[in-house]
Structure formats: C-alpha cells, structure tokens
C-alpha cells in the first residue's frame, strides 16, 4: 500500500478553535490507509512549508492529504512544496475544513464530525489519483490589440516591452471617441492634447506596429497560437502570429431617433451631446438658454451609462466658458456621480449658475420642454437649444468579433466578461481579453484601469522565451469508445472539443480545455473522462464520505 501522509493545519486559531483536531486525529488514526498524521499551527507559513517538505522526505510519503483552508487559497502553495520535495503534485488532495467546517458550522461537535467525513473521503480518494504531467507547448508572446481608441492605445503602451511585438489594428483613424471631445472631466484638460501625445508615443514605439484603416478578416487558432489575417490600408493582406488578443473596440453613443419624445431630428435646435461637443460648440454662437437632458435612452436599454451626468456638467462648463451669460438647465432623472472628485465638481458647476431640475417625464417641443417635475407638477420651459445626453451602447462591430472569436455577449450586447467581479477583463476563452467601452459603459478612468488590467493579465500569461504551461487537470476522449455523437462538443463552454469528421469521433484541444468536466458528465459512453475526477475517484470519495 502507498504511504499516505495526512497534515492537519490549525490555521492559527481559525481551525483549531472551531474544530476539535485532537478528536479528528484520534478517529482517523484507526484508518489503515494513513501512515502518519502530522499537525501544524500554520502550514502555509514559511516555517509550515519547511515542516511539510521535511516531513515528506523524512517519512517517505508517496501521497499527501492536507486538511486546511480552501484549495482556492493554498492548493498551489502546497503543490509547489510537493514538487520541490520530489512528489508529483497531483498525488495530493486538499480538504477544506476552514471555510466548509470551522467558519460555517458554529457547533464544534458538528464541525468536527463534518471535518472527519471530509478527511476520510479525501483519504479514500487519494489512492486512486494518477500522477499528471504538466504539459508545455510552443507559443508566441506577441499581442494583437483590436481597436485604437484611447483604451487600445493605453493597452498597447502597457503591453509593449522588449522581445514582444504588439500589433494594434484600427478600422478608422487612431484615437476613437477622444477625437470628438473638447476636454475631459473633472479636470477639464484638453482631450486633443492628451490624445496627440499618446498617438505620438505608440507610433514611435519600437515594439508597437500600428495598422490604421485596416480590417481584421479572420482569426484562427487558440491561446498561445492565434493567426490573424488583416487587410491593410493599401489593401494588402498581412498574416500575424500572435499568442493573445485584447479587444478594445469601444462602444458607441446612442442615437435617439427612435425615441419621439426627445424631438431629435424633428427640431433643428436639438443635438446629441456628442454632436454638440464635436461641432456645434465651435460653429455657432451660443444662444441665451440651453437645456441639457440626461438619461436619454436609459429606459430603453435598461442600464445607467455612468458617464452622462459628469459629461453633462462638463458641457455646462464649456458653455459657460464660451458664453458666460447663457443660462444652462440640467434636466435629470437620477444624478449618478460616484467617486472622490465629483461632489466638488457638482458643487462648482452649480456655483457657476447652472440650474438642476429633476424630471419624472419629459416631452421636447419646438423651443420648449414640457415636463412633469419631481413633485408631480406639469411644467413648461422655453429654451433656445437642447442637448441630449445619450447613453453608451455596444459598437456595431461587437457582434462581428463575438462571432469571429466565439465569445459570448451579455444581455445588453456588450462582450461578456468571465466574471463581473473577479475576472472583469477576461472572457471565457483563454487568451482573449476585453477592455474599455466594449465591455460596458465606462469613463476614461475605468477604461484606462481596464487597459492596465488586461495588459497585466496578458503579460503574465505569455512570457517571451517560455513555453506555455497547459492545465494538467483536463479531459480526454477515449478514441476506441467515442461514437461521435457530439454531445460533448455542444456542452463544452470553452470550445475545446471538435468532431474529427474523418474518424467520426470527438477530440480535445488540451490548450483550450480548462477541465470543467461538462463533457465527462454528458458523455453517455464514458468516452470523455476527466483526468483528475475519474469515476473511480469520485465514487471512492463519496463512498467514504457517506459511510
């Protein structure tokens, strides 16, 4: 029988106080499958790791069970110790007796019983583990950034480093939405100056190759080894080998033509905020009264676009700067101004004589606004010009790239992030990240933060000169058993399975497979199998747990 070592971690007082580890030791001692039980105050500490490594060597353990915190927290830590101690890190099972016992079962007796069951299950399972081999493949560290708005430009600058080519492809001119802005809130700096500086930077950067007025025709491959076909400005075709892709195609401002109560295109003095800032403000002498209407389109698409409140105040300031005596009204439904700078920004805008009116309902007429106020009173105001502060919507190309790269869209039509809180710039496809307005409405700050996040993620995932380490806990298909029914292909979330039509069987792309096990669960023949969750492993684990 193999020599199994069980380590109990006290996690300081976390586990020791809530689970009776003496009792656990006493009960498990009788299990012949365990050679020795060791205990430590804090196994993840430097001292603890040393203790673990020494104990493995001294006692000649062949397999290890550690009862401690969540594997999410320290599984990798302990696997590294095992590797250094000369053991295959997959001959290891972690039992979570902190989150699953100590922290959630207040009764110490019950928590102890539960810990015993979970530990028994792991002990019964560990003998069925097989050593897994960490695989490596050749890969390209180069990065393709699609969309050269400010997010794309920032992403390029942050990913650019020696030994790594960065390609940035833009279908129009560089700069995106910033080309149309006068200034940036809340600091009121010039948008153009900032943009020109950034464009100069990427154009002169030795590691960045810029393709403007170019189209992405096709992208094939997978993480580490993508091939993109690009049609350049002069209609030439270029093939790029890249390892990862960052989508920074941005969003668009909503055009309110379909909402008749806002009078857009019906009255000549009604403009969108975008039109106003891009051209109207430069061309015309500003009239006596201007109203800025917020939340245009919000009800239709069902979300707050985050930027319009602050942007509307910025417009008010631009108006005041140009024409001090123009009276500015802000018609808002909800004011959304989070962040440390914005209370002050709001206060200062108000002090410049800008009036804020809260509306419940609004109807824009010829040189007037009819509205129902906060206190349900029907009112009317004569104005000379109306600016519609429209929300942000997904760009027209979003669907094209979703199809091209096989990544999902969310309910609103933006690219869907892998996890809204924990993985906001990754997609479900390894090697494809998203940043900026194509992920959802956001202001420049957020976009730049996301640019940094996606750059960091990309840089750390593919390192020049290193081969790509591929997840070892993947699924496999037994050729001799597979009947090619394609059930696994259709349940695979990561697009890792395809049908080999010549053999009429399913095949796994091990780079894309993340070992979720959907295929293994769905395959009726048992041809799809998870290497680290075999039927035998699961069965033995459950059997001991439920005994």
């Amino acid at each position, binding site marked *: 029988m193999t020599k199994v070592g069980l380590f109990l971690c006290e996690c300081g007082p976390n586990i020791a106080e809530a689970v009776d580890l003496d009792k656990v030791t006493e009960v498990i001692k009788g299990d012949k499958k365990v050679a020795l039980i060791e205990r430590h105050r804090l196994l993840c500490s430097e001292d603890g790791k040393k203790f673990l490594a020494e104990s493995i060597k001294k006692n000649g353990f062949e397999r290890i069970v550690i009862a401690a915190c969540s594997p999410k927290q320290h599984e990798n830590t302990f696997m590294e110790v095992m590797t250094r101690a000369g053991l295959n890190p997959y001959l290891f099972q972690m039992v979570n007796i902190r989150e699953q016992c100590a922290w959630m079962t207040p009764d110490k007796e019950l928590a102890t019983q539960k810990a015993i069951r979970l530990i028994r299950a792991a002990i019964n399972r560990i003998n069925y583990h097989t050593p897994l081999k960490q695989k490596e493949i050749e890969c390209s560290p180069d990065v393709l950034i699609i969309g050269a708005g400010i997010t794309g430009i920032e992403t390029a600058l942050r990913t650019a480093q020696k030994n790594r080519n960065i390609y940035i492809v833009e279908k129009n001119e560089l700069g995106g939405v910033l080309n149309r802005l006068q200034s940036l809130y809340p600091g009121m700096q010039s948008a153009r100056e900032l943009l020109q500086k950034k464009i100069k930077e990427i154009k002169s950067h030795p590691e960045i190759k810029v393709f403007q007025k170019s189209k992405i025709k096709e992208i094939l491959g997978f993480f580490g080894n993508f091939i993109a076909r690009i049609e350049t400005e002069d209609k030439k075709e270029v093939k790029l080998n890249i390892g990862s892709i960052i989508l920074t195609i941005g969003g668009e401002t909503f055009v309110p033509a379909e909402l008749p109560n806002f009078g857009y295109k019906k009255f000549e003095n009604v403009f969108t905020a975008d039109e106003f800032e891009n051209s109207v403000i430069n061309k015309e002498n500003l009239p006596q009264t201007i109203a800025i209407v917020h939340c245009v389109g919000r009800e239709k698409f069902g979300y707050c676009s985050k930027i319009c409140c602050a942007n509307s105040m910025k417009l008010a300031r631009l108006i005041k700067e140009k024409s001090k005596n123009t009276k500015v009204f802000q018609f808002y439904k909800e004011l959304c101004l989070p962040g440390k700078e914005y209370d002050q920004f709001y206060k200062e805008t108000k002090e410049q004589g800008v009036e804020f009116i809260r509306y419940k309902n609004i109807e824009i007429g010829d040189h007037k606004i009819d509205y129902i106020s906060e206190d349900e009173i029907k009112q009317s105001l004569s104005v000379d010009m109306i600016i519609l502060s429209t929300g942000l919507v997904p760009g027209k190309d979003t669907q094209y790239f979703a199809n091209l790269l096989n990544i999902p869209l969310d309910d609103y039509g933006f690219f869907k992030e892998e996890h809204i809180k924990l993985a906001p710039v990754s997609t479900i496809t390894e090697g494809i990240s998203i940043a900026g307005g194509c992920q959802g409405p956001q202001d420049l700050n957020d976009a730049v933060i996301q640019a940094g996040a996606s750059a960091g993620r990309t840089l750390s995932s593919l390192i020049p000169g290193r081969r790509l380490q591929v997840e070892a806990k993947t699924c496999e298909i037994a050729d001799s058993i597979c009947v090619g029914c394609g059930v696994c292909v259709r349940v695979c979330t990561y697009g890792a399975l395809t049908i080999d039509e010549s053999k009429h069987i399913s095949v796994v792309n091990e780079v894309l497979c993340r070992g979720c096990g959907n295929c293994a669960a769905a395959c*009726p023949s048992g*041809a799809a199998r998870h290497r680290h969750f075999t039927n035998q492993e699961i069965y033995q684990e459950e059997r001991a747990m439920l005994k």
Partner: protein
Amino acid sequence: MKGKIIEIKSDLNTAIKNIIKTLVQKKLFDAVFVPVRIPSRESFAYLLIKDKEILESITPLPPTMPVQGARALKDLTRLGKLNLRILCIMRPCEIRAAVELAKLRQITLQNLTFFSFDCPGVFPTAEYIKSPEKYDQNIIEKIKAWQEDGLRPNCSICVNFSHYNTPADLHIGFYRNHLLIYPVSKNSQKILDILSYRAEDDLTEWENSINTLLKKKKENRSRKFSLLSNQTKGIENLEEFFTGCINCHNCMRVCPICYCRQCFFESPEQSHHEAEEYLARAKEKGGIRFPPERMVFHLGRMNHMALSCVGCGSCEDGCPMDVPVGQIFSFIGNEVQKMFDYLPGKNLEEPIPLLTFKEDELHEYEDTREKK
C-alpha cells in the same frame, strides 16, 4: 384533412408494395429499405433492396419487429451522407427513433425518404416464432378491429401510432378496406405527382376513427402508468421489479437509441473490480448480489435514455426473462419528457434538452420543490 383514398383490391402489404414498385420503376428512389420475411419464414429482417425482383418479396407491414428499424438504419448511415436516394418504410416509433439518432449524429437523414403507416402494433417476437401462420392471419384482423390483446405490451399503450408527432414524408392510413395517402412533408408532393395522385379526398372519417382509438389508448396508458408507478415506488419495489434480470444486457443491445460503441456498464472501469473491492462492498452492505451492477445498469441506462426513449418496447421484446423493462422505460421516459416539454424524434430542429441550458429551468425546479 385531405389526401388520396385508394381501395385495397388484394391485401394491405400488396397494396403498399405496388406503390413502392411504381416509385422505384419511375426512378424516384435508387433503393428501398424495408422488412422482408426471412427464408425460414418465422421472422423478418430489414433489407436494403436495389434489385427489382426482390421487391416482390417485401413485407412493409410485418406482424412482428425483431429489429427496430432505426437500429438497422444506423448501421447503414452512421458514417455520413448517402449518395443513393433511399425510401424507408417504417413504423412511427422507428422513424422517431431515427430522427432522435440523427440529432445524436448516429444517422444521416440526407437522401432518406420516410413512409410511415398507421401501426396496429406488433406481436412479441418470441410468440410469433411459435406459430407464424396464426399471427400472420391475426394481424389482418387486428388492423381491421384495432384490438390490443396479445400485442407487445408497449404497443397497446402507444399513443403515437399514427401520423401525429411522426416526422415522415408521407403517411399511409387504413380505413375500411381502403388505403389513405396523406402527404406530410414538402417532399411528398413529388411522390404524389409521380403516382398521379391528387390529395383531394376528404380524410375526416379516417381522422375520426384515429382519434377515437387514440382516446382509448390514452386511457389504457394512464391506467398502465399508474399501476407501474405503484409497482416501482421506492428502491425495494424497484429491486423487485427487476428481480428476474440476468444481466444479459439484451435490452441495451436491441434498443435503437442506446448508441454507445461500448456500453459504459460493460467497460473495464465499471464492470471489473478487484475481488477486494467487492469484499469491501459486501462488508458494508452485508452481502452483494452477483453478477453485480444490475440495478446500476438499469438505472444508468434509464438516466441516459429517458429523454430520447420512443417507447417502442424493443428492450422488453428482447428480454429472455420477461422483465417489463419496456413499460417502465416508457413510463419514466414520459415523465421526464413531460418535464422538458420534449417528444423524442418529433422534430429534427428541436435540440435534445440536455444540450440546452436555460437558467430559469433551475429556478423552476427550486420553485416546485419549495411549493411541495
């Protein structure tokens, strides 16, 4: 409903045969896939026929079903598209099974044309072999009177025996010594043209007779299902229900839907354990029955098949121990299919529910649990 009514001058099989012969002669089909009586006369087999001489000996309407048509068709088309245009004459349950298998990529439907017919049911194969002549005579009376006694148990509770829910191209009905040709798919127009038929006859009388029969069968079925529900309640009753099983796995082998190359329950991983392992299990339970995994096999197969089971009853027909396995599969299948509002093989476009994930389905499940 409109169709073409033809008087039957000789017998049913010959009437259908004549239609098929015309279609082959006029080169609408290159081959026919249809049951033929085997030379020793006591059984039938599906034959792929190109030779016109052999067409003479076909029995489109055999009184028994030793091989489910979809199972036979699977062997023919599993590896992809056929270049031949083939006409398949099959019972509604066989066509549904074929469509279900097409969704599972085990049958390629391109270039196949299906004729279904009002199925009177079949006699159990083991019974038929004993005295074929008696049953050959009986089936004609069955068709005339639509009686259920003596039929395969699943046939007497079948509610999809006619054109309803059957994705055939053309359906053949029987009513008072007449054949009724009812065009179902777009393809069928070409067939009618070649036969110089026009779908102008009123089929209401036939439709009414089918509806009356359907009502009767539905009643039979709910009676049978409530009986089964009681018989199989709880693990002990279920054990009792399968007690005769000798683990021969015939039910799996004859099932048209069971499509695995190697059954999981016959794989080394599942079926061969070290003696020590069995000893450990015996110790836990007090004793284990051999051959082992009998219940796991049936429950596992049920789990895999419930959504796609067309209720043809081939499993029960193939069982040497008369375990009512076809009836329980039909019963459980019906319950599961109801849950997902899915009828296997009815529509090629409708995906198998296992492959579609709808988040609200989970809430539905939570809600019903809470209400209980």
